[in-house]
């Protein structure tokens, strides 16, 4: 059945993995390599959406027989133009189980096991059972978490060397936006990681509040006003359900009224959805390209039958097709892959609460969500458990000089990273004048 794959795996080559610039092992052509793919290798697919559907199909038809897929979403009508494992009758069902059932029916040699839920709900033992992880998520937060989980699974000794190479689980990650996309290979502890490239995923574009409120000019300004100003006024206790036609219609109508008042043209229901849901255009073709590039890398990493992508491929399809392959370098102060301790210059008078705020939000360097801080000797501020939160809350209003000494190291944990992953920061006091 896999006679095409067999040719690649049972015939020798001058371009095996060992000959590439990201060598991960030596290729030995043999039927055993094929048997490893079809009966031993365990692959985790993260996401069962536009990329995930493609990845599952590509893996099954590359011979992989033991595949797991995890996704928390349910199927929406607007998925059907590309997520080809779903039909109109499936709208509302979980993506993971529906996708798995389709592949299992179409490709009888492959077994896909579905997990409905968030990647953050699974622990290290769950992820450690896989040989490789292939992710196709549109969610930066989940990818950051997954990346640090996989890096943390490859334990290192005091010199930073990986203790047991079998703990290295490669992550092949894809992403798309309209006609553009990228595919990359992350070998934990060896290559750059997802966190190294966080800057290339800019936070969502927003409009300045003063423009929205005082000088609206575009339909987008009116829609944002309806969403951010009018909605909380009308429904103080309820947030917008972007999947509810009633809620979206309300925002559309309020935005339309505001646009009429200012003589602004172009507020439509479709544009309202685009702005409120931050909709990113998506087509079948780009998903197909990026997913297939990812699965080709998974296939080569697991069989060593050819060289590996080192490490990043960018794809732009609007005008001609521009593809650029390059080695994404490690960021030397990456909180995940760099051993270097970041030094943060702070004023001793800065309040702990202000320091924590400065680590959060889309414009900060670290883009954390809800950090907890400790020093070697005490808890500065802990979110959990409740009693500890209550006990440390008062520290938020205290200046740093009362809590830590100059050049003290603090440990930061955050929901963006798995539980046992932390980063270390060194606080260095600036003199008052400079601050």
């Amino acid at each position, binding site marked *: *059945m*896999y*006679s*095409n*794959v067999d*040719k*690649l795996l049972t*015939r*020798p*080559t*001058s371009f095996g993995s060992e000959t590439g*610039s990201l060598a991960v092992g030596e290729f030995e052509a043999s039927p055993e390599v094929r048997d490893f793919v079809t009966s031993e290798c365990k692959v985790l697919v993260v996401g069962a959406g536009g990329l995930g559907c493609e990845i599952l199909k*590509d893996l099954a*038809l*590359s*011979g992989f027989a033991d595949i797991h897929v995890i996704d928390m979403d349910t199927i929406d*009508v*607007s998925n*059907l*133009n*590309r997520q*080809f494992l779903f039909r*109109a009758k499936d*709208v509302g069902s979980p993506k993971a189980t529906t996708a798995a059932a389709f592949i299992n029916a179409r490709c009888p040699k492959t077994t896909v096991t579905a997990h409905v839920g968030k990647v953050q709900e699974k622990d290290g033992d769950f992820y450690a059972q896989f040989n490789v992880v292939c992710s196709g998520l549109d969610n930066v937060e989940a990818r950051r978490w997954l990346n640090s989980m996989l890096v943390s699974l490859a334990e290192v000794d005091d010199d930073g060397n990986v203790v047991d190479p079998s703990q290295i689980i490669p992550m092949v990650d894809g992403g798309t936006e309209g*006609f553009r996309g990228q595919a990359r290979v992350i070998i934990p502890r060896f290559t750059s990681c997802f966190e190294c490239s966080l800057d290339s995923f800019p936070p969502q574009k927003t409009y300045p509040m003063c423009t929205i409120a005082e*000088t609206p*000019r*575009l339909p987008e300004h009116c829609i944002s006003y309806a969403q951010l100003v009018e909605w909380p006024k009308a429904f103080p206790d309820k947030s917008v359900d972007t999947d*509810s*036609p009633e*809620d*979206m219609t309300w925002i559309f109508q309020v935005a339309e009224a505001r646009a009429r008042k*200012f003589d602004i043209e172009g507020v439509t229901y479709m544009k309202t959805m*685009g702005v409120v*849901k931050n*909709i*990113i*255009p*998506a*087509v*079948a*073709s*780009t*998903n*197909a*390209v*990026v997913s*297939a590039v990812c699965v*080709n890398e998974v*296939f080569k990493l697991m069989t060593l039958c*050819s*060289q590996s992508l080192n490490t990043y*491929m960018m794809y732009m*399809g*609007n005008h*001609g*097709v*521009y*593809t650029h*392959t390059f080695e994404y370098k490690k960021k030397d102060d990456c909180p995940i892959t760099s051993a270097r301790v970041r030094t943060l210059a702070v004023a001793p008078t800065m309040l702990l609460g202000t320091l924590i705020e400065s680590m959060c939000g889309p414009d900060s360097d670290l883009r954390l969500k809800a950090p907890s801080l400790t020093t070697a000797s005490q808890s500065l501020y802990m979110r959990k458990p409740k009693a500890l939160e209550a006990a440390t809350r008062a520290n938020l209003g205290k200046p740093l000089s009362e809590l830590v000494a100059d050049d003290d190291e603090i440990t930061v944990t955050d929901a963006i990273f798995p539980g046992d992953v932390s980063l270390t920061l060194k606080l260095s006091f600036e003199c008052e004048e400079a601050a």
Partner: protein
Amino acid sequence: MATDNKYDRQLRLWGANGQRALAESHVLLLGAGPAGTETLKNLVLPGVGRFTVVDGATVSEADLGNNFFVRPEDVGRPRAAATAELLKELNPDVEGFHRVARPEEVVAAEPDFVASGFSLVIAAQLEPAALQALGERCWANNVPLIAIRAYGLLGVVRLQVRRLEVVESKPDNVAWDLRLAAPFPELEAAADALDLDGMADADHAHAPYVLVLAKLAKAWRVSHGGASPKTRAEKDEFRALVAGAARELPSKVPEMNFEEASNEAYRCWADPRELPWEAQAWIDDARAAPDAPSEGRRGSVGSEAAPAAPPSATHVAVASVAAFMDAHGGLPPLSGAVPDMHADTASFVALQKLYAARADADRAACLAIFAAKLAEATGAPPTADEAAALALVCKHVRDVKLVATRSLADELAAPNLGEAATALFETDDAREKAQAPVVWYAALRAADRFFVKRGAWPGADGADLAADAAAVADELRAFVTEADCADAFDGVLSEAHAKEIARFGAAELHAIAAVVGGVASQEAVKVLAKQYTPIDHTYLFNGIAATAAIIDV
């Protein structure tokens, strides 16, 4: 769910125009292997109107291992029927047909089958001689052709179009036509009415930069004998003048509209008569031949002229724009679009209306020319669709382009490989050079030569791998020598490339077929929707090192 439109996510790219064009298309697929079915899948999902699959094979065990559109129970059935059925099942909006016949035989026996109403032909894994013949028929009938191939770890998408009229090319950076170097009377009047000195601070900080520039540029011209800033020194002086016109507000916050005005000052001397060369080329062509569209960019060796067809409404619209420009000192119709800028609501909306009104007037003038041209040819006034075509051209006059690739016949007879090779070896690293996509282009041409001589692919099942590799190496040397580019490949091509081709044994790996299917369907959408910029002309994906390039040989 907040929408009931399953096409919502793609409409945000190609809009209602693109979707309509897609829904009105009929795509012919020759060859229902994995590269072909993956391409078609990505066209059925977004709602192509109709497709026809032509394939002569019977579903085998091997198909189950690399083709998603066959099931175990289909083994033994015609592959055309099985794949068409499962492809159709993806989207109830799409009509699907199939025909059980070897594509090579159809091409040989019914050479003009491709011209029987298809919008686009996709040829998957066609044998070299049949592909060449098909290319010639598609060229002669001006039917776009996408030839695709998955060969071991290599994937190829080859587009051939003789003449494609693209209006909505959707450039990444919009070239706003604001007419500051040649202001129309209404713009001048609005600028004159702007009392920069007498304004309250709040109004001063919210005056649209376009009006600020129009006003300051006029003052400059008045004091410089009617000329705009020309020399570098004059341009710097003008920029300083613009920056100096900003007020220092009590809040000390710099005026953002004046910052924008400084940054955009170049618009006061950027000549709106200068169009991108692609747009200018089509306008010149339409002016010279309003009734007989040209051949496109390049002729083809020994090929026949395209059958005389009446010019499209779009071509007549471009010719009308050319006539409008001749009557307006070379100025094209105004598009009417204005970028967002720092301004208060009322001033911005008034500015938008000013530009829109002028654009309406220009379009009406173009429509009058257009109607006269059509009346001459057909005796009838423009239909709603024809008027819409004219409006679209007026709106996107800077973005229009004629797309034409080199013909397959020319490429096969005389590949410009030396040129392509030098440009495509972007690196000095020997390992990277060995994986440059253009090297694999040459290797695939060698595989084709091998096939033409022996009727089988190198490294096919049961073949002597070493002997086949040696024969491919001979073909490779002969090919680069005949293509007169042996020097360019010296030290880059090695026996290893020939051995790898033999190792592949023409295997169709699903992942490679899926890359090919993705790129091919993307190009198909561009060609059918007449939007964006299609490739010129070959995309080669090297799955060994995950590198890829456009090769125009």
